[in-house]
């Protein structure tokens, strides 16, 4: 989320405030500094209070520039973003009142530790846009060298990154690959260098290094190749054999890949040496089911990244033979192999698209975000729809969400329809066995729920060590995540990131929808049902000694028994328990009668309630009963959150240009006719034009 930024400085005044300097514009008050030629006697400047309070004043440096306007110790502001962003440049708002500004700044943009762009700027006014296009980055650092007038502090009212525009607009990246094939693969080769780890071919991030090989015409002396380290690791596959002067091998190297199960794909993508761009110009691929040859084809790659199109179903072995290299005297290189194809659709291929994203400010429910679209394919390469294939939605190279294929269909010779859902949708299809918890950290419990899932998640530092008490029944992983989020006061959000984010509900206003952002006549202020109070049940579970029979039947082999409520001290006769928890047991039997017994818990509830003291008639009390992670430890906080949420029965819907604003952000909305409303962006239905994203927005 765009508001999840960290601003660091190398020194600032005690009253300086950089809290929301990247999203809100601050103005420094008209206090008189005693700096030369600052406080003009024209009535604009006032005496300062004895103590200037911190807050909403922006950044004011400790350093004071000298007689030449240059800083001795240069002020530096570093901004770290939780999610990667693109940039068209950075707007710097200085001291608008006095007209003072920094006369020379250097901005460096980083992606991780890598410096992507560095540029000097010479601002000429107190509101200056440092224009430069920067692809995805997650940190930038601004060094201020001097001021436009001598003896000045540096005042900054806003540092606004403007996302990249005109960078291609809408884009969907579709991984049309055989899901799980790479994880299941075991690639081997007899013809490989000693330093090669074939496991590298199961990864997605291997890049060939810029190290010098001693091959003819390989390491050009133009600074692009470096000495190699003594130990070579993680470079993918390099054959031991080297091709001859014609590029042919005496004995062609072969990579034999076996899989643990059967897979189908539209072909195989090979990435050769992505640094030198050497590739194999003739490759033979054979697909097998066990040892039965299903298909065989020669391919003639024409670049270091090549898709070998050949649709084969139900294979569990692939043999790739490298017959010829693109240049003489080369090893066969392979840095990546994908069992399928990555397709990229732009807006000229996407015919219809709907994208709905939603969060709930108290996580009483966790919605499944969806992306549905139709593409008019420009290639003859057919699709191989497989559930959970990944789609990444971008606009101007900024990520809007990651979705997983739920259903795909062909509508005509060229048109394909895809219906996808986000990670929460995937979690909704997977079971979690739950259990009783007594102080497990959020980090550990969420780790258990997400175990085995393929997507990354990010749990905010604030939430990681929060203890969780109570009970989770056997439920879907989505339901379990919703229970946790509700108990912690967290929000689960998959929008605007490659990861699933779990973060505390935002309280501070970090954005605004001005009249100019909202389409005229689209604002609707809804007044929902008036709620006068909230009732929350606190749950507790005490072990009882009373034994109950949970399973009784003749059993041969294994069986999973799940319980509708938790049990402890499980005992089995006639068989054995291979694994068990509070809500389940895996039983093994050999044909005789197996009896499973367990002891119950005493499930007690205590009600806590909060009502509006000003309303005595027509009461409407909302009751929260099934939130079994609400206990005496957290009930007070939950009650307050639910009460605050439900007693605010207003929501504002409108159509607007989204620009930098995002789901989950706390914003103000200028309704024009009903004042300025404040709330969380809970829902967006995105529409895409060539240059802009607009959305039906719900703020509550």
């Amino acid at each position, binding site marked *: 989320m765009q508001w999840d930024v960290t601003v660091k400085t190398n020194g600032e005044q005690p009253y300086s405030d950089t809290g929301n300097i990247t999203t809100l514009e601050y103005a420094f008050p008209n206090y008189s500094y005693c700096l030369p030629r600052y406080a003009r006697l024209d009535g604009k400047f006032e005496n300062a209070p004895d103590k200037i309070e911190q807050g909403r004043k922006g950044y004011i440096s400790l350093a004071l520039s000298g007689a030449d306007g240059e800083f001795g110790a240069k002020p530096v502001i570093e901004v770290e973003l939780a999610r990667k962003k693109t940039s068209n440049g950075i707007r710097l708002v200085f001291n608008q009142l006095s007209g003072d500004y920094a006369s020379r700044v250097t901005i460096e943009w980083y992606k991780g530790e890598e410096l992507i762009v560095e540029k000097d700027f010479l601002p000429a006014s107190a509101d200056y846009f440092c224009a430069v296009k920067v692809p995805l980055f997650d940190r930038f650092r601004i060094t201020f060298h001097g001021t436009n007038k001598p003896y000045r502090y540096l005042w900054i009212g806003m540092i606004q990154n403007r996302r990249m525009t005109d960078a291609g607009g809408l884009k969907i990246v579709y991984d049309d690959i055989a899901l799980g094939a790479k994880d299941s693969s075991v690639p081997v080769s007899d013809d490989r260098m000693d330093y090669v780890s074939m496991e590298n071919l199961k990864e997605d991030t291997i890049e060939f290094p810029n190290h010098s090989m001693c091959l003819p015409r390989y*390491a050009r002396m*133009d600074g692009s190749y470096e000495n*190699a380290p003594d130990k070579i690791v993680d470079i993918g596959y390099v054959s031991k054999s080297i091709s001859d002067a014609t590029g042919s091998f005496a004995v062609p190297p072969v990579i034999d890949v076996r899989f643990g199960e059967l897979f189908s794909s539209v072909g195989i993508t090979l990435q050769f040496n992505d640094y030198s761009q050497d590739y194999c110009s003739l490759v033979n691929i054979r697909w097998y089911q066990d040892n039965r040859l299903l298909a065989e084809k020669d391919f003639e790659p024409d670049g270091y990244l090549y898709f070998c199109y050949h649709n084969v179903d139900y294979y569990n072995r692939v043999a790739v033979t490298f017959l010829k290299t693109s240049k003489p*005297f080369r090893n066969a290189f392979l840095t990546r192999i994908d069992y399928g194809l990555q397709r990229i659709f732009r807006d000229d291929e996407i015919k219809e698209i709907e994208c709905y994203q939603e969060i709930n400010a108290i996580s009483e429910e966790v919605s499944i975000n969806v992306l549905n679209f139709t593409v008019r394919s420009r290639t003859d390469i057919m699709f191989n729809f497989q559930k959970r294939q990944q789609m990444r939605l971008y606009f101007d190279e900024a990520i809007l969400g990651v979705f997983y294929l739920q259903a795909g269909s062909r509508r005509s010779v060229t048109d394909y329809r895809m219906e996808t859902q986000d990670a929460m949708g995937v979690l909704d299809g997977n079971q979690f066995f739950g259990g009783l918890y007594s102080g497990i950290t959020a980090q550990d419990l969420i780790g258990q729920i997400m175990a085995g899932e393929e997507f990354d998640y990010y749990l905010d530092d604030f939430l990681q060590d929060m203890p969780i008490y109570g009970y989770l029944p056997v439920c879907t992983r989505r339901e379990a995540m919703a229970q946790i989020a509700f108990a912690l006061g967290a929000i689960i959000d998959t929008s605007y990131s490659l990861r699933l984010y779990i973060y505390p509900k935002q309280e501070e206003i970090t954005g605004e929808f001005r009249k100019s952002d909202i389409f005229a006549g689209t604002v609707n202020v809804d007044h929902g049902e008036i709620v006068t109070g909230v009732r929350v049940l606190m749950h507790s579970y005490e072990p009882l000694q009373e034994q109950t029979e949970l399973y009784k039947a003749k059993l041969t082999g294994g069986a999973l028994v799940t319980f509708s409520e938790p049990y402890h001290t499980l005992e089995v006769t006639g068989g054995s328990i291979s694994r068990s928890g509070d809500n389940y047991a895996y039983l093994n039997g050999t044909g005789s009668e197996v009896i499973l017994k367990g002891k119950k818990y005493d499930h007690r509830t205590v009600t806590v309630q909060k009502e509006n003291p000003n309303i005595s008639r027509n009461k409407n009390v909302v009751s929260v009963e099934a939130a079994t992670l609400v206990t005496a430890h957290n009930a007070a906080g939950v009650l307050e959150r639910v009460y605050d949420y439900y007693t605010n029965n207003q929501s504002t819907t409108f159509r607007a240009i989204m620009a930098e604003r995002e789901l989950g952000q706390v914003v103000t909305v200028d309704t024009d006719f009903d004042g300025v409303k404040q709330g969380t962006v809970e829902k967006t239905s995105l529409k895409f034009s060539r240059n802009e994203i607009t959305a039906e927005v719900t703020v509550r």
Partner: protein
Amino acid sequence: MSVMDSLIFDRSSMDLMNDTDRCYISCTDLNRVEQACEYLAGILGVAIKTKVWKMEDWRTGTEMERIRQNIAKLKEAYFVRESTPAIPVEITYTSIYQANNIEKILKDIGDMYDSMVSGIPRLPFGLGKQVLGNRR
């Protein structure tokens, strides 16, 4: 032709522009340098370690430092011209000019030795090598 005659120290920007073989560093080039070092070490009585490079080898920093130290030992053991390039702080082969300098140092040591052997002026021809009647 002796290895000293095969040293290359005239690579130019034209090589880069025309993408000639001379602007790449391969096992052939490294072996030429190693052989020149070995030859000079033999005649100057300097103990150094050399290696035979193969196409499948990586040009490692450790080996480049060994070559650099070999050259330093050879330069210290004999005379060089005032115009002889300095030994690079690190052999990186990131430019054709460094490659030129490395081989020029070796060439200069060899040339100085050839022209100063036992203080006797060098004969204008290789004694016993020319065909009779072909003297100039």
